[in-house]
């Protein structure tokens, strides 16, 4: 009798457990979380919020913690804070954790100290300092730690490396060492001749192929214009619009014919590209 009762109880319980997990998964997915099976292990998960679930807050993280067998968790760019990290304590199987570009700081890192399986931890772009690193020194399996754009120092990293000799700390480049070199602007630009529609000078009826060059169109007229290329067969192809007062850089070939129209496609005039980079000024 007892046996039967037990079986009945078991049969009754199993679906409840399954449906609890199912509703958990559904609610994680509802908040933008993507749940993927972890390869090679049944009922183990990789959970990602960084693409569709960036609105995730600390409360939303509680659902993830209830899922238990989470092996990898990506919280990049979400709204979580240090207070929310308490939910991660339950995820003892966690191997990979992305917390980069979140609002966390040193105060929540102690919740990670017990995650003994952690191998990968990404903290780049957060406010953490050396104090956070001190809390990580017992994570014996930690192999990769990312701390670019944080407040950690050489001394802090050295200290952590003493405790974890197999750890690779990626600190990234020092942006202050990158010098932006500005190339001098080429001043030897010639101006292309404006051939107004109906004027004495007629442009060629179609473009010819030539060498590569660049034209900078400047609209100094008081109306919005459109830019057409007259192709090799003589038909016009729209390339874009140049609003009044605006300019546009255009790759082209020498001997290419360019037509300027007003915004109602009424022709105003033409330019023919030369071999050198040039300015093409649409006059008043």
């Amino acid at each position, binding site marked *: 009798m007892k046996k039967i009762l037990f079986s009945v109880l078991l049969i009754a319980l199993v679906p409840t457990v399954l449906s609890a997990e199912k509703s958990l998964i559904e609610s994680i997915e509802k908040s933008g979380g993507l749940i993927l099976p972890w*390869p090679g292990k049944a009922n183990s998960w990789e959970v990602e919020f960084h*693409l569709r679930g960036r609105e995730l807050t600390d409360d939303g993280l509680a659902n993830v913690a209830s899922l238990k067998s989470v092996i990898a968790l990506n919280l990049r760019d979400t709204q979580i804070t240090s207070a929310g990290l308490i939910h991660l304590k339950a995820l003892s199987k966690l191997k990979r954790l992305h917390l*980069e570009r979140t609002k966390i700081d040193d105060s929540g890192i102690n919740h990670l100290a017990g995650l003994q399986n952690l191998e990968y931890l990404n903290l780049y772009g957060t406010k953490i300092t050396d104090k956070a690193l001190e809390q990580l020194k017992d994570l014996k399996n930690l192999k990769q730690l*990312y701390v*670019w754009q944080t407040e950690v120092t050489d001394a802090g990293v050295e200290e952590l490396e003493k405790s974890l000799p197999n750890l690779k700390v*990626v600190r990234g480049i020092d942006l202050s060492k990158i010098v932006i070199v500005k190339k001098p602007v080429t001043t030897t630009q010639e101006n292309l001749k404006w051939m107004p529609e109906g004027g004495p000078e007629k442009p060629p009826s179609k473009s010819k192929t030539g*060498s*590569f060059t660049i034209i900078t169109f400047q609209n100094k007229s008081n109306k919005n214009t459109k830019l057409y290329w007259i192709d090799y067969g003589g038909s016009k192809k729209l390339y874009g619009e140049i609003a009044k007062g605006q300019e546009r850089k255009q790759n082209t070939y020498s001997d290419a014919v360019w037509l300027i129209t007003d915004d109602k496609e009424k022709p105003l005039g033409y330019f023919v590209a030369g071999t050198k980079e040039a300015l093409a000024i649409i006059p008043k």
Partner: protein
Amino acid sequence: MLSLHHNRRDFLHSAVGLAGLSLPTFFQAKATTPTLKRKAKSCIIIYTWGGMSHYESFDPKPDAPAEIRGEFKHIKTSTPGIHFCEHLPLLAKHSEKLAVVRSVHHKHGGHGSGMYVNMTGHNPVGGVKAKGRKNWPSLASMISYFHNPAKGTPRAIRMPYSMFDNGGQQAGEGAGWMGSKYDPILVRTPAGEPWRGVNRYTDHELNLKLNLEKNRITQRRNLLGQLDNAGTEETAYNQLDHYSRMAADMLLGSPVREAYDLEKEHPKIRAMYGNHMGGQSLLLARRLVEAGVPVVQTLLSASDLAGGSGDNWDTHRNHFPKMKDRLLPVFDKAVSGLLTDLDMRGMLEETLLVFLTDFGRTPKVNGNGGRDHYPNVYSLAFAGGGIQGGQVYGASNRKGTEPAAGACSPADIHATAFKAMGIDPSTELHDSLDRPFQLCDGNPLPLF
């Protein structure tokens, strides 16, 4: 019999298109084989269009006779025993992240077929033409098939333009028989000093920078409607539908639109990649991957090989000055910038980098100081995505004229990429006539 096939297929396509119905689900096969390894999440394909010389990049031959060795010296990398060309000094510091394959070979001496076999992993049969729906899908299309990103995020993006040779667009960059739904979306890189050479924009092309204002989307839709669809076998309707819908979705507040705005990037990070089309394209690639685009393909060279003086890798003339002054510095800076950036953000393991090119260049320098096409042996590379860096697979012989060890094909390179992305290379997909096609008939190289 064959022509009957074609007729039926064309009829089906046009009937479906005219009726305005959505195409039925042609592809039921999914990669069901469970993998024990965690797969890479995204893939960046870096293509040096025109054929990058193996001598002046990943496989210098200091012991070859002078007429083969060329003008450049070799330099040490961070990995003992691995040497690169002296004009890749930045990349040499990243050798621990790179797996170089020095023994790739195939049989195609022309750009069109050389590109096709590298891009699709299959030999071209008969005359393949650009946008043909009988072509094999590109690597980008095939990988993207196995991903289902959020709305407004394309499965695959390619930039900054299509491959052209003498004014003719080349086959192998599209989704071929997989259908337009899987064509990578072509976008224009919005910044950087343009490549010198012929940059053709005659394809469907999206310049999101021109479209940042929402109220212009309708106009853009109309403009897209005017674009020429010549040369396609599929009805214009279907192509336009997929393309314009995706364009509109991308423009309406998706993370992709945000990623496209390079002005939002730190100016020093932008400078790290180099202020040229090559560098800014790879920077954009990183931002797109971060935004959830599964596959990004970038062309690191000017698009039309007919621009003899252009910045492409087809260096029949003045090979050495061109490589030294224009091509290698851009490649070096852009790729090193990408590797540094992905690494410090903790993204390198999840992002597979695949380097492809048409073929290598001839051993003997020709009368014009150039090197010609040479498919007998050439070098390609991988980085990230679970691939073990700091290694060289295979070798060419002392003169760099043929594989001496580990000879492999573009199909093997594809199989390696599929494996890294968690896709079984022997997966079968079905075309619109339900004919089964095995993704790839190569074998993954032991680079993991």
